[in-house]
């Protein structure tokens, strides 16, 4: 049991890091809250004044707000489904012994190391370009109609790009989980004559549930912040402007007050999503 002295020493030891945390996190947060209640435009500091809920009112009643919210949720949900399902399948495949396994694993994981801006540029100019992209060439070779991705399916295009970036992460986590599956359990299933599908649904999937939870939680946090892919490909063009992008638009007009309100609304919404997720699937983590 800790004595009073050791407790005091421990407190003194952690004090600097607590102070740092305070400065790095609490101060900006408090400032954001403070600014969100002010008319604070960098280019017009003469009007700096208490504004009450005005910034929140304008942000929440912006017709683009609902649109941005729908886009954000669609993007997050779609990418989660693609990466989790795809990740499980890829992890199962990569768990099988085959020639060149190391190289294949490296190739599958590679997209995770590409920066979002770079991957968006590559997809936009090399793959999805309606004039000279790879997909256009494939369609033309097969005498199929050419798909104009960013014009006709802008949101789908961005979902595909983002999913491509996050699939390796899901695969990596799920592969590690599959590899931790108890050999004895595998053997017991084989001895009992379990068919592949039953083996997958009754042994592998329950074993993966914890890893899937981790993937969903971590990816959600990052996917709610998707920005670079939208900025580079369509600049928010036809129906692709998500919540961070909407805040960015406010900030562009040097309206610190409006942007602070928008940012706080985004934080609140992200927390609601996180709470919902933790309640819904977080129980797995306790098991």
């Amino acid at each position, binding site marked *: 049991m800790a004595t009073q002295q050791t407790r005091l020493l421990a407190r003194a030891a952690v004090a600097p890091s607590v102070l740092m945390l305070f400065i790095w996190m609490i101060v900006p947060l408090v400032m954001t809250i403070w600014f969100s209640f002010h008319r604070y*435009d*960098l*280019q*017009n*500091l003469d*009007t700096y004044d208490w504004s009450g809920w*005005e910034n929140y009112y*304008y942000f929440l*009643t*912006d*017709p*683009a707000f609902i649109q941005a919210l729908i886009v954000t949720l669609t993007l997050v949900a779609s990418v989660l489904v693609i990466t989790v399902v795809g990740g499980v399948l890829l992890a199962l495949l990569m768990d099988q012994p085959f020639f060149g396994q190391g190289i294949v694993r490296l190739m599958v994981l590679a997209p995770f190391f590409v920066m979002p801006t770079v991957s968006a540029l590559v997809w*936009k100019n090399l793959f999805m*370009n*309606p*004039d*000279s992209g790879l997909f256009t060439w494939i369609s033309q070779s097969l005498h199929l109609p*050419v798909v*104009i*991705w*960013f*014009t*006709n399916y*802008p949101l789908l295009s961005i979902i595909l790009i983002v999913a491509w970036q996050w699939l390796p992460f899901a695969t990596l986590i799920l592969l590690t989980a599959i590899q931790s599956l108890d050999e004895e359990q595998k053997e017991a299933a084989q001895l009992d004559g379990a068919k592949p599908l039953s083996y997958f649904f009754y042994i592998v999937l329950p074993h993966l549930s914890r890893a899937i939870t981790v993937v969903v939680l971590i990816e959600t946090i990052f996917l709610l912040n998707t920005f670079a892919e939208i900025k580079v*490909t*369509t*600049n*928010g*063009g*036809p*129906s692709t*402007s998500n919540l961070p992008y909407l805040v960015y*638009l*406010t900030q*562009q*007009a*040097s*309206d610190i007050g*409006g942007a602070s309100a928008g940012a706080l609304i985004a934080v609140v919404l992200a927390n609601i999503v996180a709470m919902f997720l933790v309640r819904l699937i977080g129980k797995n983590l306790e098991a």
Partner: protein
Amino acid sequence: MKTAKTLLALAGALACSVASAWAADTLTIATVNNGDMVRMQKLTDDFTKANPDVTLNWVTLEENALREKVTTDIATKAGQFDVLTIGTYEVPIWAKKGWLVSLDKLGADYDVDDLLTPIRAGLSYEDKLYAAPFYGESSMVMYRKDLFAKAGLTMPESPTWDFVADAARKIADKATGTYGICLRGKAGWGENMAFITAMSNSFGARWFDEKWHPQFDQPEWKNTLSFYVKLLKDAGPPGASSNGFNENLTLFNSGKCGMWIDATVAASFVSDPKQSKVSDQVGFALAPNNGLGKNANWLWAWSLAIPKSSKHIEAAEKFIAWATGKHYIDLVASKEGWANVPPGTRKSLYANPEYQKAAPFAKLTLDSIMSADPTHPTVKPVPYVGVQFVAIPEFQGIGTTVGQQFSAALAGSTTVDAALASAQNSTTRTMTKAGYIK
């Protein structure tokens, strides 16, 4: 004794060097990472030799980062920079705020009357110059002479929109991947809205009336947007709604566009055989008009200005006079050739036969710049300055939001009417919030 003398001498030398360092001005210059600006940095020996008491400290940034940093610095009066690189968008806004030093002491040989009139107007507030232009640009039509000849067409020097649209439809041959016209469609205040705003001026439209009420519910805007959407649908490249300057440059240089209306600075890229497949077939014309007295061309100038918070105003003035003066143009010409001098700022450059020979597009660039008037950009009167933008702080945000709507209309995901109604609504909201509309 000898040691004491040596120490004294050393101390004296140290004191002198400290004193001279104290006397020397260190100018911190914020600039954009464009080729012409980077070249300027390489040539600054010429300036520092003539001004040994001034040392230069460069902060070179990408356009958006520069805009953000410089705005924060000047708004908060932080005084980090002595010379700012800003565009025609910022100058009237900041001059009105009293944030910039007026540039009336650039020296007797600076020849301020030699600056092109529209550029000078764009960088002035209440007839006082607040920034000196480093290079300037307008927009023009770049077209393929071979495709025009094949279609039996002759491009007039100042085409109308109807001619451009007819020609674009005649030239377009989608089977061979040749598009009649390439125009900006990617959302953004400096992307599609630069083009569409300039185009709307020639259609008689305006962003705001004299009382700052948005005008997207007026027939002029409907004509502009309908014409633009239909033209690109009939004769433009696929996916035009995600094409900006760079995408269209690539399309044009690879021989896929019959016409391209964009910045005059592109003229040197499309006629450079190293970059363009069609360099020997490019012709130039003024941006189109609709017979209303306004051409669809814009006006932009990257310029140097001094914030009021600078502590080295005199040295900053010397530097700006050097970087934007006639001597600098001669310096670049002697070291890098006439084709590489910063264009679009001085009358004397366009009167120079050597430059005319090196840049075949010089005359049209000059004519394009001269036909833009930032103080009277539209047919009807407006309360703002700026040709392809509205020089108010809120414009970056509303320009991009409206740009998204127009990009959606081009993509076909919304109608022209719905896009205009949405633009009217969002702009009215922002202008009401900002206090322009009571």
